[in-house]
């Protein structure tokens, strides 16, 4: 599903990714762990073209990115198939919760408003927020907002979901709400790549754990293999 080959990326002169290679199989959950500044988020953002890279290649859901700027058409095609959830939720504050969820299917896929709304309400029910459809994001708690963000990404029926530290801005109770939803998705066979510091979650949900340190893959394996080693230190 995802094949990363020898990826090298610089940010303002610093080598952030230093020859990262990685494979993600369909229907699996991969968590990226490691210290801050290790390149986890940059790697994730290279997967849907929010960042470009200097060398190597990324093959994702059948599209291949190479070094340098990507063409807008390629980016739009990949992003239809790859959903993303951000640390700061990034909901659209001027739209109601349901409109946040339906705007992309309507605008990008040209879905009729009625269908998009039916599907959107279904997704909001799934993340436990059906009754907040008409609310504005600003009135929701952080955990609720992040669940809306997940519903928003799912509305595009992505083949891969990317999570960039989805619970780092949340307190433990809210984190639990969000991780429940993510766990639910994992059981449903959704292919996911998750950047997280939450080792407990990684142990419960991850098929594969990747530890990135200083832009290099330090360890790859099951949760037990990677995290037992890393927690020992």
């Amino acid at each position, binding site marked *: 599903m995802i094949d990363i080959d020898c990826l090298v990326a610089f940010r303002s002169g610093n080598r952030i990714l230093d020859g990262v290679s990685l494979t993600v199989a369909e229907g699996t959950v991969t968590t990226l762990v490691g210290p801050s500044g290790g390149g986890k988020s940059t790697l994730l953002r290279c997967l849907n073209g929010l960042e470009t890279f200097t060398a190597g290649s990324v093959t994702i859901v059948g599209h291949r990115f190479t070094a340098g700027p990507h063409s807008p058409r390629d980016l739009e095609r990949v*992003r239809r198939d790859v*959903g*993303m959830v951000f640390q700061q939720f990034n909901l659209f504050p001027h739209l109601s919760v349901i409109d946040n969820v339906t*705007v992309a299917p309507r*605008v*990008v896929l040209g879905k009729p408003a009625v269908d998009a709304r039916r599907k959107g309400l279904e997704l909001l029910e799934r993340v436990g927020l059906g*009754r907040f459809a*008409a609310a504005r994001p600003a009135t929701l708690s952080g955990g609720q907002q992040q669940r809306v963000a997940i519903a928003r990404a799912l509305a595009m029926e992505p083949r891969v979901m990317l999570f960039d530290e989805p619970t780092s801005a949340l307190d433990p109770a809210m984190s639990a709400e969000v991780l429940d939803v993510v766990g639910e998705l994992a059981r449903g066979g959704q292919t996911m790549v998750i950047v997280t510091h939450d080792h407990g979650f990684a142990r419960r949900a991850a098929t594969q754990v990747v530890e990135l340190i200083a832009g290099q893959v330090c360890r790859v394996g099951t949760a037990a293999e990677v995290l037992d080693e890393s927690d020992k230190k």
Partner: protein
Amino acid sequence: MKPWRWSAPRGARGLASRALVAAVAWLVIALPGPGAELEAVIKRGELVWAADQEGGGPHVFLDPSDPTKLVGFEVELAALLAEELGVRARFQQGQWDRLPLLLDRSADCVINGIETTPERQRDWHCSRPYYAYSLQLVARRDAGPESVEALAAAGPGGRWRVGVLTGSAAENFLRERPGFEVDPIGYDGTVDCLEQLKGGVLDAAVMDDCIAQFNDDRFPGLRGAGRPFAGGTYTILTARETPRLSEAIDAALGRMIADGRLKTLYDRWDLSGRQQMFFLRHAAEIPAAAPQGLVELVSGTLPLLLSSAAMTILLACASFPLAILAGLAVAIGRLHGPLWLRPVLAGYVEILRGTPLLLQLYALFFLLPKVGLAMPALGAAIVGLALNYSAYESEIYRAGLKAVPWAQFEAALALGMTKWQSLRHVVVPQAVRIVMPPVTSDFIALFKDTSVCSAITVVELTKRYSVLALSTGRIAELAVITAVLYMAMSWPLSLLSRWFEQRLENRDKRPGC
């Protein structure tokens, strides 16, 4: 610490303060400002006379062969008059339709083709006539009305568009004939008016016969249409508070008429000296108009002011949406457009922001017709306002677009939206909310800037006010009425925008279960 004190000896201090009082008193008494009585004028050694050189020849104009020199038959008349009073003449520039206002402080008298009217008789002191004029219709050689009588029926293009000097007898003549199929269009200068006639914007122009004759060889494509008609006399205006100066001017004019100096002057300017003297010796007294009550004033002027307020609203409401659309497009182009376009748009903004609105309107209205792009005044006004304000709006929108967090843009892109879809559905709607207050305040500013359009003959509220204020002499009362009308237009706008802003804010916070 002891506070600092000026500690000069008492005697010196008294001396200094007395010297100061004396100096001030000397300035006040010995150097009276213009608008003073005869004795003060003589003491000053200067008669300050006001005129508008933009009004043009043969009255007062810049010598084409030496543009630093003011010439004209009134320049010579003023010199003669000053000589009679035993002083020098000093010229004071003013806008023609506002010259009488200078009598308060800046000038002793106004000499500039001011027609004797009952209203002027009432509000200022009018001297005995010094010149008799008729009105002349001017048209292009190949088109336009054949004579003034032809104005009673519509022309081939509907109502005749006829240029006049703002506030002149020609304008009053046309306005007082409701049977005429004429839209009088007011200009500040004769040459502008004739240029527009030549360029096809006007069908005809009406002006004093001496002006038409003076400009004849400068505009070979134009012709006098029919014989001179109507007419009246020119008078020298002085303030009501300076009766002795007025008397002295009357007496001086009398002597100049009697001993032939005025006739010689007119003959030198080819102004039919003999015919002039024939009229001037026997000019009939024009009675002063009765003073108007406030109710009469309001009921007489309010309908005109209201219709001009409608023009102000039309100008603002037609131009501002255009300005907003253009401004938004420019802002988006500068932030997200192709690289080659960005400096072009930056130049657009700098040029429009860096030059006066008045100049832009002039360019649209007076210069474009010269390259074959004639635009009606209303069109030029709306386009000019829209262009000018689009520069300001684009800067506001640029700031608004930048104030929307980049993460919003990324979130939209990550959902598969194109750059333009992201802007359209995510970034611009948020930017619009951010810029609502400054944009509203710009709309109110534009409302008032519409008054600049009077320079290109559009009669809106401010122009109507100044014309009415001068024709009625009720400057203060009409100013209050006009200000109230402006407030009545802009205040609801502020309320509306605050309501809109609050509605958007509340909606963003609505729990909505």
